[in-house]
């Protein structure tokens, strides 16, 4: 456990991607099986310990520390595992015994009953040092959050020998910890591991955002366009197992198996292959908003009522595999033809359809379609369009985010100037800084008149340097405290103006202003602008009028990253 804890500790501080790969590869090279295999499982998120809940950890720490001091510490540190690791009152003298190896810990936590868990966990925490406690808690609660993706860990496996990361990805589905065959193959000591999974995940192809300056280098004749749907990227894989029975799996774009959340959809599919598409909720033939889709996400129990009310649907745009044939080396146009044939042959039960091709001659044509999807073929579904996708007609399906073949061209966000009113400490990466901001606009007939009313809350969009500046501003200009929330000065002459970008507006009873912003983020700090010149509520209310088709963005769901991290 100590070695694994040391690896996580170093990874947490290594900012460079190549540095991380080197650290992990070095650990793999110097750590025997099966220890390294369980470490790989931990880094790729392949381990899960159902009974080790944050609630248990809170219970253990609350039995040992003052609740107020714990609450203040947690608020400050922003991370439960780290707070507990630092506060844990370790008895003296126990640290001399070597803690058990990672494999033993994984085995114990996988097989232990719920009743034994608290005592076993407490005794392990007693025996570990601060780093060890942190690593153990991160491991068993399943959120390492050390800036290592599954892809990066697999890249480190590839770095052990002559393999490429994509080769590792291709054999990965169906492999299980501790991956001894995989390591043997990567090190050139063994055969390529065979997967017998009839419906494996294939790594997805991603696009780059299109900038205005990119157009001059792109030839419209070489591209196909589709709507960019505001749902969840999904891969539906279906195939016959050794026993002849078909297996269907639905994967998020990161390869997470989400079939369990959509049994209605998985049961309705009847093809043999792997379809790439968007998961949407359809009601009476119309695509529902992302807010509706969210009703079906992250549910522990998928009730028949939920399935009835929010039927899941795939809008297909690519075909990676069909009847044992890998289509990824075919150009887009050829794959598209195969996809159209597959959808045409599929039973017509409304569960899967084609994402239409948007026709255009010039970039201006496409800009017009993007600005008004409803009258360019999207019709009633225009509400669920958040832009257009551009795919080169000759592009192969390449895992990852290759630059050039695929582009996303999103609709433009809106922005307003608002005044910072309240700030709260953030969690995770932003912990211990005031990084959650509530901002408001003026109610009066002109800016600076009336009062400021909150219209939203944002916690990203700013740079680290800007975070420091705002944090300092908050600490120096606090006028009131409400528990963890600080009210900062906000008059017409004193205060901080934030340029807030957002995707849309809706009526809401949550804020006193009666408005709610979708996906607000801090675009710029306007130190130059006096608060009296910030925007007015009326300006925002006018925006609602032409907001009917505005796209909406989710928070973190099923591999859909927040743009702050995408940047």
């Amino acid at each position, binding site marked *: 456990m100590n070695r694994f804890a040391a690896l996580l500790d170093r990874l947490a501080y290594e900012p460079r991607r190549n540095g991380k790969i080197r650290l992990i590869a070095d650990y793999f090279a110097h750590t025997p099986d099966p220890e390294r295999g369980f470490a790989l499982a931990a880094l790729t998120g392949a381990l899960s310990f159902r009974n080790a809940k944050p609630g248990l950890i809170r219970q253990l720490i609350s039995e040992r520390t003052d609740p107020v001091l714990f609450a203040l510490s947690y608020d400050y540190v922003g991370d439960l595992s*780290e707070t507990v690791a630092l506060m844990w009152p370790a008895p003296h003298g126990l640290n001399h015994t070597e803690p058990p190896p990672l494999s033993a810990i994984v085995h114990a936590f996988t097989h232990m009953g719920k009743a034994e868990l608290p005592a076993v966990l407490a005794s392990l925490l007693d025996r570990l040092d601060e780093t060890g406690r942190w690593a153990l808690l991160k491991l068993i609660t399943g959120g390492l959050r050390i800036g290592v993706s599954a892809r990066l860990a697999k890249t480190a496996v590839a770095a052990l020998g002559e393999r490429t990361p994509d080769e590792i990805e291709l054999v990965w589905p169906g492999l299980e910890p501790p991956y001894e065959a995989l390591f043997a193959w990567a090190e050139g000591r063994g055969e390529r591991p065979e997967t017998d999974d009839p419906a494996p995940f294939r790594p997805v192809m991603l696009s780059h955002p299109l900038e205005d300056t990119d157009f001059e280098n792109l030839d419209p004749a070489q591209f196909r366009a589709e709507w960019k749907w505001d749902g969840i990227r999904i891969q539906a894989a279906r195939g016959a197992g050794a026993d002849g029975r078909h297996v269907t799996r639905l994967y998020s774009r990161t390869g997470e198996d989400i079939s369990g959340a959509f049994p209605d959809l998985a049961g309705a599919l009847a093809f043999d292959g792997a379809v790439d598409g968007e998961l949407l909720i359809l009601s009476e033939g119309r695509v529902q908003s992302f807010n509706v889709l969210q009703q079906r996400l992250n549910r522990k129990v998928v009730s028949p009522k939920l399935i009835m009310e929010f039927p899941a649907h795939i809008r297909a745009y690519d075909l990676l595999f069909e009847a044992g044939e890998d289509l990824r080396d075919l150009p887009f146009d050829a794959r598209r033809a195969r996809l159209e044939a597959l959808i045409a042959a599929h039973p017509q039960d409304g569960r899967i359809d084609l994402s239409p091709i948007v026709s255009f001659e010039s970039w201006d044509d496409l800009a017009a379609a993007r600005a008004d999807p409803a009258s360019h073929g999207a019709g009633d579904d225009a509400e669920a369009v958040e832009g257009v996708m551009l795919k080169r007609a000759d592009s192969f399906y390449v895992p990852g985010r290759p630059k050039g073949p695929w582009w996303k061209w999103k609709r433009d966000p809106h922005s307003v100037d608002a005044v910072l009113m309240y700030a709260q400490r953030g969690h995770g990466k932003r912990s211990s800084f005031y990084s959650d901001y509530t901002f408001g606009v003026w109610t009066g007939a002109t800016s600076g008149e009336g009062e400021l009313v909150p219209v939203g809350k944002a916690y990203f969009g700013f740079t680290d*340097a800007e975070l420091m500046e705002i944090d300092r501003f908050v600490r120096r200009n606090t006028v009131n405290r409400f528990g963890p929330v600080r009210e900062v000065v906000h008059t017409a002459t004193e205060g901080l103006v934030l340029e807030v970008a957002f995707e849309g507006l809706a009526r809401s009873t949550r804020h006193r202003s009666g408005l709610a912003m979708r996906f607000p983020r801090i675009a710029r700090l306007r130190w130059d602008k006096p608060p009296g010149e910030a925007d007015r509520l009326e300006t925002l209310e006018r925006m609602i009028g032409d907001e009917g088709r505005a796209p909406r963005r989710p928070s973190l769901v099923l591999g859909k990253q927040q743009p702050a991290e995408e940047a």
Partner: protein
Amino acid sequence: MRPEELLHSTPQGLYSPAGDFFIDPTRLVPRALITHGHSDHARAGHGAVMATRQTLDIMAIRYGEGFAGATQAAEYGKRVELNGVGVTFHPAGHILGSAQIALDHKGCTIVASGDYKPGADPTALPFEPIRCTIFISEATFGLPVFRHPDPTEETAKLTDSLALFPERAHLVGAYALGKAQRVMALLRAAGHDRPILIHGAMERLTGYYQSQGIPLGDIRLAREVKPAELAGSVVICPPSAMTDVWSRRFPDPVTAFASGWMRIRARARQNGVELPLIISDHADWDDLQDAILATGCEELWVTHGQEDALVHWALLAGLRARPLHMVGYGEEEAETTAAPDTAAPETPEAQP
């Protein structure tokens, strides 16, 4: 007499109505008593300043000789009277010249401790607990998550990394006054005998420490060293210089940062620190409790930092306690690489 007549907080800082002077005022005042030379406590432009000889020297180095209308040097442990209020400076263990200021008047004693740290530090006289009625403490690290490890173990992290990466320069971010010189002294105590390279902003202060009889060994300006000699050397610079153009002269450096904040992972990561060194010149959670209890005080006032937690603890411990909610302090420890203001070179010749 109410203690507030002896000392209370104002927007300018702690003020003594009985003695008509301020302690560590954040704005310009006619008469100021200064606990130590960090810029958030010691500002230029007051009418008259009373501080230890070393704090006055440090202020003169940072702001020039005319930093105040008049100055008066206070001797550690020697009581003087200002308008009938007894004033005694005692060592605070924070940095060279740092002091706690004890005020006594009509049987009431209040100790304003400034910033302080119990424990060994070759660069500062050790903190002494002073018996008092009211103790005024900072709470920069006033949460039970802050338990500073042994500084020699933290220094070993740096020397271990030097052994592991002998081809890379090790850039250590450290506040220019106090922390930088302490890191030098810790390295020397750990047996590191190569020249230590420094950023121009800390040249004069480091020279002053040496002139006060603190041995720091061979200290050289980084800008005067040939690029070939940078490999495997320790370079100490203000945190703000780590992300500055200045740091580009070091190829592929290991970036370290010496601060109590390095206890919190997110803080280290936010600053792109690869080698966090938890070395602090402030009392940690246990130190704060020990120091407060050692004064035998009946009441605790908390100036800045994590005042809520420390006040909560003090109330549980049976003391009267309240936060003063003072603003403007804590900049030196709060400083990070991304906030290049307080550690910026303060004198023109300090530019590298």
